[in-house]
């Protein structure tokens, strides 16, 4: 059966992780295997994506237990797109890690864990079973705990304590929500739940369950007021780790929110209002937080929070245009946030600092590199025709047609504040004349490393910038894709049919 192909990325990642463990001390072999494996994964996910684009939703029942009794894997266009984006970011970070992560960390199993993390991400995007989603979330957080602590520096351990406490708490809340949901409906299959939850008479309890899901996923997605763990931890690990975290981990939370609130808990006005309020506060507080930071990576951490607000706003408005905008933003955001943290790693490698007070004179020193870094930075702001601009049109349009003027205000405010922050960053890091700093004798500067390693630093940034440029200049295609995803999400019958009746 050809529909089986959707679980191949999972097999590939777990095989890679196991294979890498056999090369525990041979880090060069690990680097090569990881990069080749990630490239193969990218090819595989492109194939899956094109299959799903042509043939519609694929579903696989584990062990041939018919849905809703067995565990289902289902790939609609949304899942396929996210798996593809995971592969793109995964390849970039794999190359970047092989150049930037110090050998001491690689010797403690960095690459195997990295591929376990990708396994968890792919699994979370593909599963059609809510408890299975919980299990994939646990795989993600266990891998991310190891990645965040590997190396064991003081700041890392402190960040890890905060990161880990709130993520475990989020998992427990998620588990509680699953328990209540199972008690109400007796089912765990998401497509089956869609019908069963709608039929439950005790609406109050359904609402409470929905709020529990919102809190559980909200902590993971870092929305207001549940985001405090993120700026306390994301700047502590090596930048390769931050980039995969910043690009994909919070987005899994957003994915789960979108999935659960378009499939299972639909059409509840109260919930939509809560989502919109959360989105507005997230946009404002993330933006203001980023404004006062001096560490480049902390600025980007707060910007992650700020931009999560766009997606939540799109979900809260819940029209086809709004959801298409949210999905478009998600696609753009995964690529650009991964790229930004790699950029901060590059800056650190060149200047041995991430503080805006110390950095400077970048443009004079590296003009070509500066022009390259211009692309992700200003894609983030959304200066047309770069990629961040297009989804905002959809979001604002949806805001006008729904009369959500506060949301429009917050969206515009957040865009403006992002512009201010990036302009400040550009002036400080690229234009300002820096003070002379003594060179650290123990630090390996960018100018000292070999050509190949320089390439490992720059190539992934170039690759993701090209993807960003494609999203910006090929916005027509991405808009078509987002509209189709939004259509599938809003008319969820297609997904339910594919899972429960085999589809096709």
């Amino acid at each position, binding site marked *: 059966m050809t529909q089986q192909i959707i679980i191949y990325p999972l097999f590939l990642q777990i095989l890679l992780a196991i294979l890498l463990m056999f090369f525990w001390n041979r880090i060069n072999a690990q680097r090569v295997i990881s990069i080749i494996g990630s490239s193969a994964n990218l090819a595989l996910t492109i194939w899956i994506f094109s299959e799903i684009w042509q043939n519609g939703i694929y579903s696989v029942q584990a062990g041939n237990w018919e849905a809703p009794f067995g565990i289902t894997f289902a790939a609609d266009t949304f899942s396929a797109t996210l798996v593809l984006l995971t592969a793109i970011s995964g390849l970039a970070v794999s190359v970047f890690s092989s150049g930037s992560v110090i050998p001491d960390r690689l010797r403690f199993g960095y690459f195997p864990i990295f591929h376990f993390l990708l396994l968890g991400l792919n699994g979370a995007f593909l599963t059609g079973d809510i*408890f299975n989603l919980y299990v994939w979330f646990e795989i993600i957080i266990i891998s991310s705990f190891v990645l965040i602590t590997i190396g064991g520096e003081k700041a890392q351990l*402190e960040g890890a304590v905060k990161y880990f406490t709130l993520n475990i*708490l989020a998992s427990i809340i998620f*588990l509680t929500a*699953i*328990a209540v949901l*199972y008690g109400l409906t007796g089912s765990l299959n998401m497509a089956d739940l869609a019908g069963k939850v709608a039929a439950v008479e005790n609406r109050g309890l359904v609402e409470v369950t929905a709020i529990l899901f919102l809190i559980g996923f909200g902590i993971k997605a870092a929305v207001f007021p549940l985001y405090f763990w993120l*700026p*306390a931890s994301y700047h502590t690990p090596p930048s390769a780790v931050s980039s995969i975290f910043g690009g994909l981990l919070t987005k899994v939370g957003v994915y789960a929110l979108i999935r659960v609130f378009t499939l299972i808990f639909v059409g509840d006005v109260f919930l939509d209002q809560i989502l919109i309020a959360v989105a507005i506060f997230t946009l404002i507080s993330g933006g203001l937080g980023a404004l006062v930071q001096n560490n480049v990576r902390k600025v980007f951490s707060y910007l992650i929070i700020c931009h999560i607000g766009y997606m939540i706003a799109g979900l809260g408005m819940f029209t086809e245009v709004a959801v298409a905008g949210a999905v478009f933003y998600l696609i753009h955001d995964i690529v650009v946030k991964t790229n930004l943290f790699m950029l901060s790693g590059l800056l650190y490698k060149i200047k041995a600092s991430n503080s805006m007070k110390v950095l400077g004179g970048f443009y004079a020193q590296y003009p070509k590199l500066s022009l390259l870094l211009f692309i992700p930075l200003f894609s983030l702001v959304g200066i047309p025709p770069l990629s961040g601009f297009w989804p905002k049109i959809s979001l604002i349009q949806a805001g006008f047609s729904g009369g959500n003027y506060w949301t429009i205000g917050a969206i515009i405010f957040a865009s403006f504040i992002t512009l201010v922050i990036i302009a400040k960053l550009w002036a400080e890091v690229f234009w300002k004349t820096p003070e002379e700093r003594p060179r650290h004798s123990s630090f390996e500067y960018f100018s000292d490393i070999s050509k190949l390693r320089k390439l490992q630093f720059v190539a992934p940034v170039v690759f993701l910038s090209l993807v960003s440029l494609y999203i910006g200049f090929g916005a027509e295609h991405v808009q078509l894709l987002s509209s189709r995803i939004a259509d599938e999400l809003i008319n969820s019958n297609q997904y339910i049919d594919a899972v429960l009746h085999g589809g096709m």
Partner: protein
Amino acid sequence: MEILLALMIGILYAAGIYMILRRSLVKLIIGIILIGNGANLLIFLLGRITKGAPPIIPENSEVFLDAYADPVPQALILTAIVISFGLQSFAIILVRRAHKVVKTDDLDEMNATDEDS
């Protein structure tokens, strides 16, 4: 039985949250363990407790004749216990390492990551 379990789950959640809100790292872990157990018991309770009716179809029939205990919650709890066990062992090691490196047990003093750098 249900009332007793419900009360116990409530106490576990309350005690767990109280412990998480304390400043000590060790108490934090104890809190997480308590809440985790509360969640497991909650799944067990909400899967409906049926006494003495295992989900086994009698030999001479094709379908269940009576109400039976739902096996799914137990499978879920088993999975959740294994996962939380792994996480808790990681947590204990992490706290030990953090205590060694940061030299404090007080969460309020762990603010190096929030300082401007």
